[in-house]
């Protein structure tokens, strides 16, 4: 079922939790709401579910206007961040709940309910735990039961609030994959909240980046990564180094450091965002750039080595981070305290008066 969100806004007391925002979700899509704490993700999700009323705007499921419909009647599946399993019911009773509270006419027979529940439990691979109580389950198991419970009534919309927030990295990855499989198999429309960018990028068909109650960008993961359209998205997706440059003699200059303008670049002051793996590293400045930095830390992380650097004779608010493949690192053999020069391969330029960045590349 497609979901249409139009001009939804919400405030709590004085505080504007959501500025009017609109969002179209296609049938069968999986949408990730990504953003820092307090950006209104949960609020938006709860409004979609009907757990919270919006101040303005309307919401449509398919071509049904559900704005004034009670939660009860919206028939969405909702998975709570901390699962909210019914503690006094067994796993099976939890899953059966949605079926047992159906109006008598629609309610399946008890044996039918039992079959359906067992089927769902098998689907989440926890049929053997049917008679346990929630307190006897691990986090990952609880999560799956919460999902089974939400799916019992065969909702066409599934909403999940930080479904994997509280889990171990390993379990998390497993469940993530499993959810995606289920989504593809059953074909419902899903919206999930996360503040983990990797999760959002890996799992969603489209990612909605939120900040301060409004939507910053909506895009497919690849596109989002390739062309973030604001400083905020850049900052939040992370791992970018920022060079604050003034136009001087056709170069961006920052005290002693300078970067040559590549072809097609505007002749303006601005900030250059360069991702941590988009660098060459050398012991001397290159023709394109002269960015002297001192090595303050060297961390081998997985397939790469991460260098932390501070600028020498120029200004940056943050420590710079550069990721090198082991090979490139071994070749240069840097040590802590040494000076090195980096040269960007590609970067995003935000002119001071512009909102959107321009993608620049120094490579041919």
């Amino acid at each position, binding site marked *: 079922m497609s979901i249409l969100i139009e001009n939804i806004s919400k405030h709590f007391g004085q505080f504007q939790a959501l500025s009017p925002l609109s969002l179209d979700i296609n049938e069968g899509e999986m949408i990730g709401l990504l953003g820092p704490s307090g950006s209104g993700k949960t609020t938006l999700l709860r409004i979609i*579910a009907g*757990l919270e009323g919006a101040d303005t705007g309307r919401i449509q499921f398919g071509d049904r206007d559900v704005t004034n419909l*009670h*939660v*009860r*009647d*919206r*028939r*969405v*599946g*909702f998975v*709570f961040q*901390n699962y*909210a*399993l*019914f*503690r*006094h*019911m067994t796993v099976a009773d939890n899953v059966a*709940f*949605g079926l047992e*509270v*159906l109006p008598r006419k629609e309610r399946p027979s008890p044996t039918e309910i039992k079959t359906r529940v067992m089927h769902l439990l098998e689907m989440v691979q926890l049929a053997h735990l049917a008679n346990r*109580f929630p*307190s*006897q389950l691990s986090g990952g198991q609880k999560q799956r039961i919460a999902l089974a*419970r*939400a799916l*019992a*009534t065969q909702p066409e919309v599934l909403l999940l609030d930080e479904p994997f927030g509280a889990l171990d990295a390993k379990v998390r990855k497993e469940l993530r994959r499993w959810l995606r499989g289920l989504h593809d198999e059953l074909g419902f429309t899903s919206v999930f909240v996360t503040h983990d960018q990797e999760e959002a990028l890996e799992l969603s068909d489209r990612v909605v980046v939120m900040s301060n109650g409004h939507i910053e960008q909506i895009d497919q993961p690849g596109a989002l990564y390739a062309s973030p359209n604001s400083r905020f998205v850049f900052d939040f997706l992370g791992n970018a180094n920022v060079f604050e440059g003034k136009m001087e003699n056709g170069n961006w200059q920052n005290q002693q450091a300078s970067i040559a303008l590549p072809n097609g670049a505007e002749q303006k002051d601005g900030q250059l965002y360069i991702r941590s793996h988009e660098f060459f590293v050398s012991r001397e400045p290159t023709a394109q750039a002269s960015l002297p930095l001192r090595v303050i830390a060297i961390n081998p992380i997985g397939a790469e080595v991460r260098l932390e650097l501070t600028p020498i004779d120029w200004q940056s608010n943050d420590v710079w981070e550069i990721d090198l493949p082991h090979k490139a690192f071994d070749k240069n053999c840097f040590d802590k305290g040494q000076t090195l020069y980096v040269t960007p391969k590609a970067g995003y330029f935000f002119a001071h008066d512009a909102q959107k960045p321009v993608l620049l590349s120094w490579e041919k």
Partner: protein
Amino acid sequence: MATHLSATETRPRHKRVLPGLSLSLGTSLLFISLILLLPMSGLVMQSVDMGWDRYWQVISDERVVASYKVTLWAALLASIFNGFFGLLLAWVLVRYDFPGRRILDALVDLPFALPTAVAGITLATLYAQNGWYGEILESLGLKVAYTPWGIVLAMAFTSIPFVVRTVQPVLEELSPEEEEAGMTLGASDWSVFRRVIFPALWPALMTGIALSFTRSLGEFGAVIFIAGNMPYVSEITSLMIFVSLQEFDFPAASAIASVVLMASLILLFAINIWQARYLRRLHGRS
């Protein structure tokens, strides 16, 4: 010898992290022994002194047994009523905001503070056939004062705070998520209340009802003024104890009191155990 030495070496004595175990436990035990257990021992000794036959004779006396029945039934009805009314009060106090909520909250403890005799006299005044309520009830053909219903009324009045004050904090702590989960699954308000909220309140409610019940079993001052005290019909067990005291028959009084006390303690203990089990299921070990 050497192994023995090393064994002691590698078994470190850990000092407790938080201070005050001996002080707090010592004080508590001393207090409980002096204030609670020592006097209780008098009860036991009195009962033991009289011998089993006489003990049995006293506690199984026909009139006394009749009073057990009256007392049990009245206390049961009173505590069940308090279960409903207390739950309602707690619910309204926790869930809704309305003018006068705080005053209502304050009023709840009133029965604790009024001397029970005053409560009894006042209730009798109100419910007697010429009282404010009595007249109305009379016109409906109902009689409360000087009937067993009067006992129920007095018991309910004096023990209402127990239920409210045990349910209230639990209701306050209840997280909204389970409720919301119920609603997203399509359950009506009533279903959610019955199947999700109520099971969570159940242990506290039971404790409250049990406390209210035991308090009712022991209530005397408030009841005798409104009970009518007719033999076999509206005599409560506390009155039987009182009668024995009037006759200077302390052993008999102790014997009957011990029956009530035992019943109360067994009930409380059973509730405690049942509740611990129930809670363990909800919260897991520890």
